């Protein structure tokens, strides 16, 4: 419990046992230390999300901005979702906005030619080539960046962050069937892109 008028600032042991909702209530009444405990509790997951979505260079800034959004929006927190889910959603929105800011003119085209290859029984890849390119973190990030945004987002949330398909659908505001289709196509396109050194092919999906 949070004694009325007290702050969590001086008592981290109490804060550690406080529920998320207790901390939200305290933070709402101006207890910034209580909000700091919420950030500590959920920040790791938020940093992981942002590092995957916007890259390690700007992840910390994006999460910081998201947490300031959250602090300012505490009155709007309805309690319908868990506090962690609410913070995650705010951070994801910040990440998506950052992606749009960086690539405002991206045409989210369909990598149809790439995916059609999978319908050809003769098509295959060399797992050793895929593994070698994937093992270079820079290449993996660059290739992920070649995916259409909606595919990339669904893939990173599902396979990078471990969200279920229905959580991905919820987070991105798309139907479940669409989320599943994005995840499936994104996985296939990613493997095909990793299997290729052909710059022309990489351009093709841009």
């Amino acid at each position, binding site marked *: 419990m949070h004694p009325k008028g007290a702050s969590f600032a001086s008592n981290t042991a109490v804060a550690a046992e406080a529920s998320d909702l207790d901390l939200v209530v305290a933070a709402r009444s*101006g207890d910034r230390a209580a909000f700091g405990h919420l950030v500590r509790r959920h920040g790791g997951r938020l940093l992981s999300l942002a590092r995957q979505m916007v890259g390690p260079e700007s992840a910390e800034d994006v999460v910081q901005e998201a947490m300031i959004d959250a602090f300012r929006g505490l009155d709007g927190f309805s309690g319908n979702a868990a506090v962690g889910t609410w913070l995650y959603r705010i951070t994801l929105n910040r990440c998506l906005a950052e992606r749009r800011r960086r690539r405002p003119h991206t045409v989210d085209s369909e990598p149809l030619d790439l995916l059609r290859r999978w319908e050809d029984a003769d098509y295959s890849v060399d797992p050793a080539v895929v593994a070698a390119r994937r093992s270079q973190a820079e290449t993996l990030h660059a290739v992920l960046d070649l995916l259409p945004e909606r595919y990339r987002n669904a893939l990173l949330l599902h396979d990078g962050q471990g969200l279920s398909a229905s959580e991905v659908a919820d987070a991105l505001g798309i139907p479940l069937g669409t989320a599943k289709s994005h995840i499936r196509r994104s996985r296939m396109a990613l493997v095909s892109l990793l299997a290729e050194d052909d710059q022309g092919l990489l351009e093709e999906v841009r």
Partner: protein
Amino acid sequence: MTALSCAEARSLVSDYIDGELPSGVARALEQHLETCHNCPPLYASLVQTLADLKSLHDARGVEELAARVLSALEDAPPIPDEEER
């Protein structure tokens, strides 16, 4: 279940990885992967690539983040609502 074509098998692989295929369909896919030449490398590459995506998880820096957020909130102008209270 009749034998799957490569195209059919490949369209099912993603759901198979997520454990979402009915058992009969999953068995048909497994049989295809046992006998096909071109599909197993695609399947293996998918599985390994997804494992690598999981390893991108990096949750370090929580204390630094909390300190930065608290410091930014100290510096920030009051929330409009606060002024009204």
